[in-house]
């Protein structure tokens, strides 16, 4: 097991930058999620870590070994990196049985027959595949195939496991089960895992830390809770969770208390300590309470039943669209008052 260190990593595809200036560190044994919309560079970053792509700038170190260095042109090929990779398409070899798929990495390492058998059995057992060992991949369901892929990458004891949207091809129910499988696997092995996904619920559920990416850059790298409650900028605030970013009209600090004028209302806000001035706040449903006397008058534009509660999309008199949650039912067009309670404020250029 090892930590992963990236320093100013960049990647250009035919003149178009896909990754820019990625400098970060994934600690040993951490479960990291790379989250972002499609085309944000998360898969490129993962493939650079695996060695399938070469960075055009910067250096990558995994454990004590330097894997790639764009300045010296050194790039360790994937087969020499000792990294596990789980593909979205599973990439099981269709001409090999489940057992052979799992034991193949050990064959390559030239282990003895008995050793191979022992390790393979252990890997199959830990993914609950003992009964399927002699089947062919085509006879398995999607979830089983993904388990085989997982067993194959853990059998050779890799120093890090990289996962490229491994649940994207599974149905919703199976996804929840497999999330459990991945989390258990991580707890048991303590492997450093890097998990690419565009599904924030998935990332939130499993990851220790999430790197939110957009346009080839890491926008914020933080714990799930911090990403939701203390977004650093407008992109993160809007991408993670449900929220509306509105500008701050006036901002006053008074000792530790911070006051801002938002949509015409005077509200207490929170922000990171170092922010001496803020420009926007993120209004999540938790920050909005529906009251008869609420000073923010708005009209219900859309009602969505969320099971046990309703999500209201409301439009304020000044035209801002805000999301509020309520257990009571409102009709479209109803007038109501909203009160804002301590939203998170940040500074955005």
């Amino acid at each position, binding site marked *: 097991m090892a930590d992963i260190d990236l320093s100013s990593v960049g990647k250009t595809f035919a003149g178009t930058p896909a990754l820019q200036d990625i400098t970060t560190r994934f600690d040993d044994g951490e479960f990291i999620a790379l989250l972002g919309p499609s085309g944000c560079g998360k898969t490129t970053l993962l493939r650079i870590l695996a060695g399938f792509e070469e960075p055009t700038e910067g250096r990558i170190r995994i454990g004590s070994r330097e894997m790639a260095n764009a300045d010296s042109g050194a790039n360790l*090929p994937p*087969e020499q990196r000792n990294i*596990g990779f789980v593909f979205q398409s599973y990439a099981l070899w269709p001409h090999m049985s489940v057992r052979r798929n799992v034991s*193949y*990495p050990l064959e390559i390492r030239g282990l003895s027959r008995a050793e191979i058998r022992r390790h393979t059995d252990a890997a199959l057992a830990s993914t609950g595949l003992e009964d399927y060992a002699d089947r062919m991949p085509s006879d398995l369901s999607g979830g089983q195939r993904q388990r085989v892929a997982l067993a*194959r990458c853990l059998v050779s004891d890799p120093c890090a496991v990289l996962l490229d949207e491994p649940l994207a091809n599974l149905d919703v129910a199976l996804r929840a089960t497999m999330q459990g499988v991945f989390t258990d696997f991580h707890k048991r092995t303590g492997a450093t895992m890097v998990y690419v996904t565009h599904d924030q619920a998935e990332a939130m559920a499993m990851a220790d830390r999430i790197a939110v990416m957009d346009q080839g850059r890491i926008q914020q790298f933080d714990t799930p809770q911090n990403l939701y409650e203390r977004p650093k900028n407008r992109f993160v605030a809007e991408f993670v969770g449900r929220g509306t970013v509105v500008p701050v009209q006036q901002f006053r600090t008074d000792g530790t208390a911070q006051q801002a004028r938002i949509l015409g209302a005077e509200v207490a806000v929170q922000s990171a300590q170092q922010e001496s001035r803020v420009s926007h706040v993120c209004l999540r449903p938790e920050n909005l309470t529906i009251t008869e006397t609420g000073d923010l008058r708005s009209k219900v534009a859309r009602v969505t039943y969320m099971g046990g509660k309703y999500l209201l999309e409301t439009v304020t008199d000044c035209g801002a669209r805000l999301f509020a949650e309520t257990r009571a039912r409102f009709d479209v067009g109803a007038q109501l008052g909203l009160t804002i309670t301590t939203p998170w404020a940040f500074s955005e250029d």
Partner: protein
Amino acid sequence: MMSATQNHGGSRSEARLLSAILVLAICLTLAPVLRLFVEGVTDQGSPSLGLMRDVLAQPSTLSALKHSLVTAGFGTLVSLVLGSAFAFLVALTDLRAKAALVFCLMIPMMIPPQITALSWTQIMGPSSVLLKTLGIAPPLGAKQPLYSPEGIIFLLGIQHMSIIFLTLRAGLRAIPQDVVEAARISGARGLRTWWQVVMPLTLPSLAAGTAITFVTALGNFGIPAMLGIPAGYATLPTLVYQKLAGMGTTVLAEVSVLAMLIGAVAVAGILVQRLFQSRQKLHLVGSTSRPLALPLGAARLPVEICLWAVVFAILVLPMFGLLATSLVPAYGVSLRLDTVTLASWYEVMFRQPVTSRAFTNSFGLAAGASVALMAICLPLAWLMERRQTRLARLFDSLLDLPYALPGVVLSIAMILLLIKLPFTEATLYGTIWIIFLAYIARFFAVMFRPVQASLKQFDPAMDEAAQSVGASLYRRLRDVIFPLSAPAAAAGAILVFLTAFNELTVSALLWSSGTETLGVVIFNLDDSGETGMASALAMTIVLVVVVLMALIQLFSRRFPKGVVPWQT
């Protein structure tokens, strides 16, 4: 290599192996063509167009060029009518037993042209055993009607109708069915849908198919040789053959100009075909999962009878002719219960040393070419798919040339390249190796394209998964890529074997005593009047062809899409 690293990082060994195999493949396939070009524009080592001017001014050249254009042009027209009628009916309507029909239509393309010509001469003319047996033979002394330009045109048309059929059917299948359904919902009926919706969409593939048929007909040697030489009607390929056979390598410079002339016309055709093919790719959007099946209604049975009657006439009837001729004791005797004999079969299969030698030669050449091509094409196709270097892309666009160019052109190019090996006094001309190398060059595309088609559908993650668990390039090729592309490679190998086993055009110019191929032997047997033995040998070859084709057909479900040429 610069662009290579842009696509994929990692192993340098891939880049090295790609360069090595690519250089080998270019030497094998493109070097002869280049050598021919150099020969045409130089005279005794210095650049000159003098020889070219002289040869082109000869009346025999001009008349052969005219004959070539006439036979290839009208032959293409015959193919176009037959092939497109079948393609439209098979691809668009609810005919029954389509698979069987398609299979039967493929057989003419796979049967070597000299056998097509031989079989047709056996069902026409005054000495036809079949006609005599039926008592409807023309009187002795009547002309063989096929020994004429019209005969050549007709048989070229039949021989190559499969090409039109295949390209057009592929084009029709690429039409999204919702396009046709939308026309029908809008109220367009039957022929109107066909004329206003289907036709405009298929024009590019029809044009591409026509161009490639013309090129193939132009390069055809077997049919004009068997029918035209007795009639004194020379096309460019037969003119080259006659000059080289009559005067040997002294006329090499002269015939290379002729070869370049054929090559130039062929390249023009290939360019036209490429142009239309690239246009066709533009509007391939929409779902094409369900094949079209417009109901023919009451016309279905008559249409089916009509189509199968045509298949019978162009496929079964000539075979009966061959069979009848091979079973009589002497050419011209009619076939009755008391005259039937297997003497010709026995003689040709077991007695004649030249035929057993030809069997060995053809079998060895075909098998050798299949194996060698498999060994080159599998890794090459894989590496070209993975790392698209500029050189690889250039090679990809040119590698069809030795197959598309007429066989005569390639043969002359091979002689020029190998008659005197560089830096030595040794020659490969007259040995079996020149035929072997010519086969490698000629059938490279036959092997490479199916393998490439299957590897294009190959999930790169399969290879990357092996890479991530530590497998070296050699292990990945051995354990993952070869096993997974084996079906396509097998199909390609059978196709190469099939084509090379029957081949005449290339070996006709390259053989010498001891290195005869089956194609050459049939041609020579017929030429020397041993029609019975030629027919028996031809029948055996037809059987081998049909068995091998059936073998591919049998396993076709296991091949990825695009591997079996007649199942596009």
